[in-house]
């Protein structure tokens, strides 16, 4: 529940375009109008930045005011009567004129501009005018393709000097690299030569730019935006779970944008998450399951591999403590839940699981980075935390990491006879030293579910391994975090939807499917037959969670049990609503 909802707030009543509206005191007219579905146009206004009031696009008529007033800087007050462009010709004319002013010196390079197709100048031009320009003079010349920093390139002629980017660097990052230079129609945005725009959130300035003045240096000219599909999903870089939208074309990620969610990331995201977005997408992919034969990996098929995995069953010879299950933090919540079911029902472990661990390594962050970035690389470790992977909910990172280290130590000590790796980076590459390599090779039964590529028969074991999965006896190709639909829990137990962006390659299987097959092979079914896809899996999980013994910390977290509301509603369609996070 949002803070604004929980805080008792005074409401004011006003009229916008003749319609009555009640909003909390202090709400500006843009937001007030939005609440009744009236879109007042603007460029410089941003919900999470200070008011600049310089674009003059949001002028509205307020009864009693001597002249038009800007909606962004006007707080709704009791009895106020506002007319927007919908009902006032004067307002419409003023907005049309403002747009005309913005366009007179704006270059006509829409044909090569990255913003074309999602540009507010274009949109409003069609709304307000759509006529040839009355401006027959020569347009002003300004700097083009100026590098502001490593990631951001500036075009002075396209710039409408809304100063959103300047305010972002002043107010959010407080690094102040950008400023406004020159006067009048010579005005441009500039950096100091010795202090380029290289802060950890620099890419947000491009998101904020309402026109095409700022572009990503690595993504510019990638694709026309209308050839891309856009998906609203979350960033899987850390456990903050920034809301983003991703533009994809032909299974390639074209562009990543922050998405408005006031309670998670406002509209920001870090450069590491943005520009490193496709780091979870390996270039090489396995086409078939593999089985270790001697010193080589041989191509096989799922049925054979699963049959070979029979040796993982509990027998009279095995002990409950000779098994180790490493779980990737990049799995969806459904898959982590299913893993816990697998541990409980199939391997007869009991929570908190002593022989399973979610991979988590804490990281050090600067003060600025920690404004948004979480000190981990584990987007969904919180789910594991919830489903019995460790008991400690408060100091959760440290306890998960300790458990992961404890299990690694057991592996090194050679007491592990059955090893299962579920998902990408279930054991971190950076943890894989020579000793661990030998230890894993020495484990008699080992199985890896991994999306990362291996070509059977070519890799000699022990020879500079690319990852722990490669050392396992059985390898099943699975899907990356970008190829799955599902949900994830962020550090604050906020349930958020993860969308598939890319189609998985032929011959890969989702982890949940492999787990189910494996469980059945080992003599216990963990999913009913009607679970056939991600959606039914999610609904099945919800139905199970009602009776589960999930533990949530009492108080201290913004969200109550995030599943409770979902499981009670019984509706089958999922959607994500911008500012309210996840609803069913």
């Amino acid at each position, binding site marked *: 529940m949002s803070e604004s909802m929980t805080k008792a707030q005074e409401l004011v009543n006003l009229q916008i375009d003749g319609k009555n509206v009640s909003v909390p005191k202090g709400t500006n007219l843009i937001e007030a109008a939005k609440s009744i579905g009236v879109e007042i146009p603007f460029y410089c206004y941003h919900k999470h930045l200070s*008011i*600049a*009031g*310089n*674009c*003059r*696009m949001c*002028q509205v008529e307020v009864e009693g005011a001597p*002249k*038009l007033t*800007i909606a962004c*800087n006007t707080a709704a007050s009791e009895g106020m009567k506002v007319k927007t462009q919908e009902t006032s010709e004067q307002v419409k*004319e*003023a907005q049309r*004129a*403002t747009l*005309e*002013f*913005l366009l*007179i*010196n704006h270059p006509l390079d829409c044909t090569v501009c990255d913003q074309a197709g999602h540009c507010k100048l274009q949109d409003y031009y069609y709304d307000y005018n759509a006529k040839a320009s*009355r*401006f027959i*003079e*020569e347009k*002003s010349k300004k700097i083009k393709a100026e590098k502001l920093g490593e990631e951001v390139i500036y075009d002075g002629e396209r710039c*409408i*000097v809304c100063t959103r980017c300047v305010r972002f660097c002043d107010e959010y990052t407080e690094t102040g690299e950008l*400023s*406004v230079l*020159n*006067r*009048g*129609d*010579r*005005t441009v945005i500039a950096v100091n030569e010795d202090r380029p725009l290289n802060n950890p959130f620099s890419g947000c300035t491009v998101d904020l730019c309402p026109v095409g003045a700022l572009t990503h240096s690595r993504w510019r000219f990638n694709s026309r935006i209308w050839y891309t599909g856009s998906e609203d999903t979350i960033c899987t870089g850390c456990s903050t779970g920034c809301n983003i939208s991703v533009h994809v074309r032909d299974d390639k990620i074209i562009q990543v944008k922050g998405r408005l969610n006031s309670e998670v990331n406002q509209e920001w995201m870090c450069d590491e998450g943005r520009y490193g977005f496709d780091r979870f997408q390996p270039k090489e992919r396995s086409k078939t399951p593999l089985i270790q034969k001697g010193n080589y990996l041989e191509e096989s098929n799922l049925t054979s591999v699963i049959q070979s995995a029979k040796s993982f069953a509990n027998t009279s010879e095995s002990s409950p403590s000779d098994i180790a299950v490493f779980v990737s933090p990049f799995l969806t919540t459904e898959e982590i839940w299913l893993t816990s079911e697998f541990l409980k029902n199939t391997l007869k472990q009991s929570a908190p699981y002593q022989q399973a661990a979610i991979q988590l390594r804490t990281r050090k962050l600067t003060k600025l980075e920690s404004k948004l970035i979480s000190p981990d690389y584990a987007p969904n470790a919180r789910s594991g935390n919830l489903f019995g992977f460790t008991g400690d909910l408060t100091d959760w990172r440290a306890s998960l990491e300790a458990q992961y280290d404890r299990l690694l130590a057991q592996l090194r000590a050679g007491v592990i006879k059955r090893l299962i790796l579920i998902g990408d980076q279930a054991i971190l590459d950076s943890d894989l030293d020579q000793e661990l390599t030998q230890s894993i090779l020495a484990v008699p039964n080992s199985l890896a579910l991994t999306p990362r590529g291996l070509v059977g028969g070519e890799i000699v074991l022990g020879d500079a391994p690319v990852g722990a999965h490669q050392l396992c006896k059985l390898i099943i190709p699975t899907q990356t975090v970008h190829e799955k639909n599902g949900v994830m829990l962020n550090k604050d137990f906020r349930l958020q939807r993860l969308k598939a962006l890319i189609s998985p390659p032929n011959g890969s299987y989702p982890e949940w499917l492999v787990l189910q097959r494996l469980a059945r092979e080992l003599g216990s079914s963990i999913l009913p037959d009607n679970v056939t896809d991600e959606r039914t899996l999610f609904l099945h999980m919800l139905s199970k969670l009602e009776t589960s013994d999930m533990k949530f910390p009492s108080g201290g977290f913004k969200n109550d049990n995030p599943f409770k509301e979902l499981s009670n509603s019984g509706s089958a369609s999922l959607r994500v609503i911008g500012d309210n996070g996840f609803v069913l």
Partner: protein
Amino acid sequence: MQTNHHKILTANVHHLDQHLLSKYEERGGYQAIRKVLKQTPEEVIQEVKASGLRGRGGAGFPTGMKWGFVPKNLGKPIYLLNNADESEPGTFKDRLLMERDPHLCIEGMMIAAWALGANWSCLYIRGEYGYPAVRMEQAIEEAYKKGYLGKNIFGTTFSLDIVVHRGAGAYICGEETGLIESLEGNKGQPRLKPPFPAVVGLYGCPTVVNNTETLATLPWIILNGASAYAKIGTEKSAGTKLFSASGHINKPGVYEVDLGYSLLDFINNECGGIRGGKKLKAVIPGGSSVQVLRADELEGVKLDYESIKGAGSMLGSGGFMVMDESTDMVEACLNLQHFYSHESCGQCTPCREGANWVQKIVGRIYDGAGTYSDIPLLKSVTSQIAGHTICPFGDALVTPVLSFIEKFPEEFNTRIAQANGIPTFNTGEELSSQVLDAVSENAKNVAANV
């Protein structure tokens, strides 16, 4: 013949040693502040309100009322800023005061500071005023040495520090919130209002920004009483005002006249009439941002806020520009538009883009490349700049162009006609009324189709 005007501000400017503290005191200086310090701030504010003194920077807002907006007991310091960023084209009156009578400016600031409860004051002087800035700095230094500035002035609890801050050459820093931004070290750009500087000003504290001339009037009001000041001038425009007269006149300069004085008398007496015996064509009475007045509109007009307003212009800053019959009004208009286009701060859209557009259109007409639709276009563009900007610069830039077009349409039309192949003759004769009618008719038709 010179009319006998009161000399409130310029009584001593002809003394070339007036800038020395000793000479200033010899001629009655620093008596008003001594008197004021025995009064309560409320009494001083009351006195200034009663005098009817209005802001001399251009807006003519009653000074005492402006001071009354400052909230008391906010627990924040109150700042007094002396606006000497005298950048309005045609205006150079404050310069005279600062150069010739700097201590008068200081004493005025002291009185205002006492009335407002300010202990820190700044003289924001335009960057181009090098010599006046030095004069003011020297005078302030002298006052500090004498103990007239600093702590416990004249043995009272009143303390005041004055610093001189030189601008960097931006017209917009004369706008009070632009001035405050500049003083804080930011780019000189006006702020959104509300909040107004009287409540949230310099460094977020209550701030009063007064024009140099306004402040320099205070010592006289204190010494001679509000009623004496109110008696001068007219009922609503009390006192005297400095006019900086320039243009095609025999005696350009700064003149102090009682408000309510006849405008034509001012030209003929103080200004010494039109240069070279030519005919008067037009007057811009209050700095470039006010409407131009044609010679035939000046009959009976008086130099006070109301009378000039009645004639369709404004008293403004008193930048009195006179143009004779040889003036090319299109060129004069272009000159002004060049200034506004150059000085637009670039913050908000209509002014940033519009100022330059207007200049380009006027420039095109001047260059003989105008079209019949340009006049309606200018009117349409300017109507969307005025009132739509953050600060009054938008209104300031459209006022001259609109008034030039309105008052001298034939000159614009002639240029456009020439550009469109309608012959004119080099004999100085104007186009016949028939041709002009045809041209304006054509312009109307074209405009209707735009």
